[in-house]
C-alpha cells in the first residue's frame, strides 16, 4: 500500500480524548503509546485501521486508539479480526488480546489462525495473570509460582507463546516489552508491514496482581543487570528467505527454539522469525475467485439502480435445468 505520499501525521491523532481506567503503572499504557507511534510512523489513515480486542484489561486497548475499535468476546478477537480483514483486505487489522484471552479460552483460534496466515498483527499483552478478573493465574504463568493474587501456587504449567506460535504456523514472531517503547514501536511497525499473520508477545507487567515478573524484575534489580536483551543487537537473523532449502529452514528453527526457551537471567526480545515461504490467505482467495482485491466482499456491488440484485444465476440454473 502506497502511503509515502500522504502527509505525515503525529501519534496524537490516534489518541482519543477519553479517560483510561487501567491501574496506575500498568504496562498496558506503554503498549498503546507504541501503537500510536507505529501508526504514525506508517502514516496510516485512522479509518483504515481496525483494532480488535478480546476481553480483559488488555481487551480495553482499542478504546485508547482513535481508529475503528472492536471490543469482541473473550477469546474471540482473532476470528472477528479475520472476518474484518477478509471482507476488506484494504484495512490494517490489529488484534489486542491478553494471555488468557489468547492462550486459554482463545487457544483454539490462536492455533488455527496460524494455519491460515491472514494478514493481521497480533499483539498479546502477556502479564501472566487474568487482570480483569482479579489476578487468577494466566496460561503463561509458570507452574508452582504464586503471585500475590493467588491463594495457592499455580497448578498449571505455562505455555510458551513463541513455541505455540511457531507450532501453529505464524509467519512473523516477535517479543517486545511494554516499558521499552522505542523498541516496541519498531516491532509493531515490522509486524504491521509483514504480509501475513504476525504474532508479537509483549511482556507486560501488571503491578496490581503480578508481583513476580515486575518492572523491577525485568530491570534485573535483584541480579544487577537488566534481564532483557535485543536479539537483533546480538546479530540474530530471523528471516527464512523465500525458497530456503531444508537445511537452512531446520537451522533457523533450531535457533528459534533455543532462543524461545531462554528465560530467567537473560530474556531475548526482538524478532524471532520471519518466514517468507508462505503466502497470505488473501492471495489464496484471490487465486480462487480472481477479482478478490478489486471487489472484496465489503464493497462488491449488489444491486442495480432499481434495487434489483445484480446476481445472474443463469449459468448455475443451466446446471440444474432438466432438459
Amino acid at each position, binding site marked *: 500500500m502506497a502511503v509515502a505520499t500522504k502527509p505525515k501525521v503525529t501519534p496524537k491523532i490516534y489518541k482519543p480524548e477519553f479517560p483510561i481506567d487501567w491501574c496506575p503503572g500498568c504496562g498496558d499504557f506503554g503498549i498503546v503509546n507504541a501503537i500510536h507511534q507505529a501508526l504514525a510512523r506508517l502514516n496510516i489513515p485512522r*479509518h483504515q485501521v481496525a483494532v480488535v480486542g478480546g476481553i480483559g484489561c488488555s481487551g480495553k486497548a482499542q478504546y485508547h486508539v482513535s481508529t475503528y475499535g472492536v471490543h469482541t468476546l473473550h477469546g474471540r478477537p482473532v476470528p472477528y479480526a479475520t472476518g474484518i480483514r477478509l471482507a*476488506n483486505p484494504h484495512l490494517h487489522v490489529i488484534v489486542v488480546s491478553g494471555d488468557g484471552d489468547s492462550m486459554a479460552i482463545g487457544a483454539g*483460534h490462536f492455533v488455527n489462525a496460524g494455519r491460515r496466515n491472514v494478514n493481521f498483527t497480533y499483539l498479546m499483552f502477556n502479564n501472566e495473570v487474568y487482570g480483569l478478573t482479579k489476578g487468577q493465574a494466566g496460561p503463561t504463568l509458570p507452574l508452582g509460582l504464586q503471585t500475590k493474587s493467588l491463594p495457592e501456587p499455580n497448578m498449571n504449567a505455562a505455555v510458551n507463546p513463541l513455541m505455540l506460535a511457531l507450532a501453529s504456523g505464524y509467519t512473523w514472531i516477535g517479543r517486545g516489552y511494554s516499558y521499552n517503547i522505542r523498541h516496541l514501536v519498531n516491532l509493531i511497525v515490522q509486524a504491521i508491514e509483514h504480509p501475513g499473520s504476525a504474532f508479537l508477545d509483549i511482556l507486560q507487567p501488571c503491578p496490581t496482581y503480578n508481583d513476580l515478573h515486575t518492572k523491577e524484575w525485568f530491570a534485573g534489580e535483584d541480579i544487577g543487570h537488566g534481564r532483557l536483551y535485543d536479539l537483533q543487537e546480538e546479530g540474530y537473523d530471523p528471516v527464512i528467505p523465500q525458497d530456503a532449502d531444508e537445511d537452512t529452514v531446520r537451522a533457523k528453527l533450531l535457533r528459534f527454539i533455543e532462543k524461545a526457551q531462554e528465560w530467567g537471567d537473560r530474556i531475548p526480545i526482538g524478532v524471532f522469525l520471519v518466514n517468507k515461504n508462505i503466502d497470505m490467505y488473501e492471495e489464496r482467495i484471490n487465486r480462487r475467485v480472481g477479482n478478490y482485491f478489486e471487489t472484496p466482499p*465489503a464493497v462488491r456491488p449488489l444491486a442495480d439502480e432499481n434495487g434489483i440484485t445484480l*446476481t445472474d444465476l443463469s449459468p448455475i440454473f443451466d446446471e440444474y435445468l432438466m432438459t
Partner: protein
Amino acid sequence: MVKQSDELSWRVGGPQGSGVDTAAGIFQRACAIAGLHVFGRREYYSNIKGRHSYYDVRVAHYPLTSHREQVDLLVTFEPESLARHALAVVPGGAIVYNVRDADVPLEKITFLDARVRADLTAYLAEHELPATTAGVLEDARRRGVQVYPVPYNEITQQLAERLGVPKAIADRTLNTIAVSISAAMLDFPAEYVVRGMAHVFKGRQKIIDLNTEAIHLAYQYVHEHFDTEPFAFRLDAEKEHPPRLLLNGNQAVGLGKLAGGLTFQTYYPISPATDESVFLEAHSTFPLRNGQQGSVVIVQTEDELSAIAMASGAALTGARSATATSGPGFSLMVEALGWASMNEVPVVITLYMRGGPSTGMPTRTDQADLLFAIRAGHGDAPRIVLASGDLEEAFYDAAQAFNYAERYQMPVIHLVDKALASTTQTLEPFDLRRVHIERGLIAPPLSSPNGTGPYPRFEPSETGISSRVLVGTPGRIHWFTGAEHTELGRVTEDPVVRERMMEKRMRKLETAAREIPPEEKVRVYGDEHATFTIVSWGSTKGAILEALRRLAKKGVRARFVQVRLLWPFPADELRPYLEDADPLVVTELSYSAHIDALLRETTGIGADYYVLKYSGRPFAGEVLYTVFQRIHAGDAERRIVLHNPWE
C-alpha cells in the same frame, strides 16, 4: 399416467456408499426430463459406508409437495432394503430384488436394528412366515404385491462381455440397472433414463457409454423375462412442458443467498448444513448483470464459534455475510449471537434443524430448535427468526434474510431443517427480478477522512434504528462492544444510558413487526373462511398442503395458517384465525409443540389438538390427511403422535 393412480411412489434402498443416491438421481432426472413433477425424499444414517439409506421419489403430472409412506415400486439390490421396506409396498405394487437375496435370514443382515429385526420377526411369525427375506417376499406376494427377482450378476456379466470391460467395471452399473429395470416395468421410455443418467455423469463420456448399454440390457431383460401385467403402474412422459430445475433444499438456500448478495460465508462442516457451503464453494464465482464478475468468499473455520465471529466481523465492513449450521453448531454460536444483537450486526445464520437434543440424530429431521432460536443468549437481545416451508420459500427467504438483517440491524436466524435440506424437487426457475436488495440506513463516507470526531453510530431514534457505518468508511470512526455502550460504542455502566440503549435495541423489534408486511409473516392456504384451522411452520407445509387438498376433495373445509416470521411473533396477524378456529390444530415435528407455547404466550389461545412427530422423520401428506379427518370427525385424542416403525 398409471393404471390405477395418477402418480407413482418409487423407492430405492441400499447401504450407504453403494450408490442409492446415484440411482435416485438418475430416476428423478429421467422423470423431470420427461416433464413430470418430482418430489424426492432422502433418509440416511450418520455414517459413511454400510448403513442403510433410502430414497423416495414421487412423480406425478401435477406438482407434488410431500412424499408418501406407501410405496408403489420398491427397487432393491441387497437384502436389508427388502427387509425394511417390503411391508410398505401397496397391493398392485412391485418389488424388484436381487435374485440372490431371495432367502437371507434377518439375523444375517448386519445393520438391521435389533428393534426392526424383532418387530419384523414377530410380524412374520404372526403370519407363520420365517424370519428371512423369503418370508418377507412371501408376505408381499400374499398381499398382492408383485415380486421380481433380478439376476444382477448375470446382467453385468453380459454387459462386461458385450463391451469387453472387466466384470468389476460392469458391476458399477448396478444402480443404473436397478433403476432401468424399474423404469422398464413402468413402460417408461428408455430414452429418458439415458438422458437422466447422462446428466448425473455429466462430462464423463466413458461412464455414460457404459451405463447407456446397461440401460438397454436392463430394458431388454424386463421385456424378455418379466410379466408386468399384474403390476399396476405405468409412467408416461409429458408432451409439452417448460424445463424445470431439479434442486434440493441446501441448493435452494445457497442460490437464494447468492441472489441476495451474499459475499462472505463461513462454515464448519456439520450435517445437514454442510452441503450448502460446499455448493457455494463450487459456485463461488458467477456473472453480475453489470458485466463484472461476482464472487463470494467461503471460509471453512476451525469451529462454529469462529464461524459466527468471522461472519460478524465481515458484516461490520459491509459484506453481506452469513453462516450455516445445525443445532450443535448453533449452540456454540450463542455468545456471539448476543454480540451481534448488541452491536446491531446484520449477520444471517441459516439453521438446519436436525434431531436433538445434543448430537441427537444428525441426519434426521426435527423442528425442536424453535424456542431456542428465539431465546438463545443471556439477556434480552433482539433477533429476527424466519422459517421456510418449501424450496421456493427457502430461495426467496434466504435472499430476504439479508434485507431484514440490514434494515433492522440485527442477526437473522433462518430456520430450515434436514427434511427440507434433503428434499429434491422440480421447480420453475426462480425469478431474480423479484429479488430486491435493501441495505437499510448506512452513513456515507466523509470527505475529510479523519472526520470531526467519533461517529454516534448507536444514536437512539424513534424506530430504534441508527445509521450503520461500514468499518473502513472515512471520517466516521467509532467503537463496537458487547458491553453496554454509549452512542459512540464505548463501554458505559451509566443506568440512564443503559436504559436508553436497551430500549433502542428492543424497539427495533417493534419497528420490524410494524413494517414487515403481513404476507411475509403469515400465509393462509386452503379455505380461508373455514374454522378447521391448522397452524404450523417450516417444512411441514408440503405435507399439510397435500392433506388440505385431499380434505377438500372429501368436502372438508379447512385452512392452514403458516407462520413464516417466528420472531417477532406475529400475534396480531394470527389472532383473527385463532379466535374463530374450531378446532385449532397445531402440527409440528417435535415432542413439545414449540409454536403452541408462542401462541399461548402471545395470544392466550392454544391448540385443541396436537399432531406431532419426533421420530426424526417428516410428515407425509396422506398420513396427515387421515389424522385431520379423524380430528374433524371428533374421533381423536388431543395429542396425536405419529409413528411409523419402518421409516
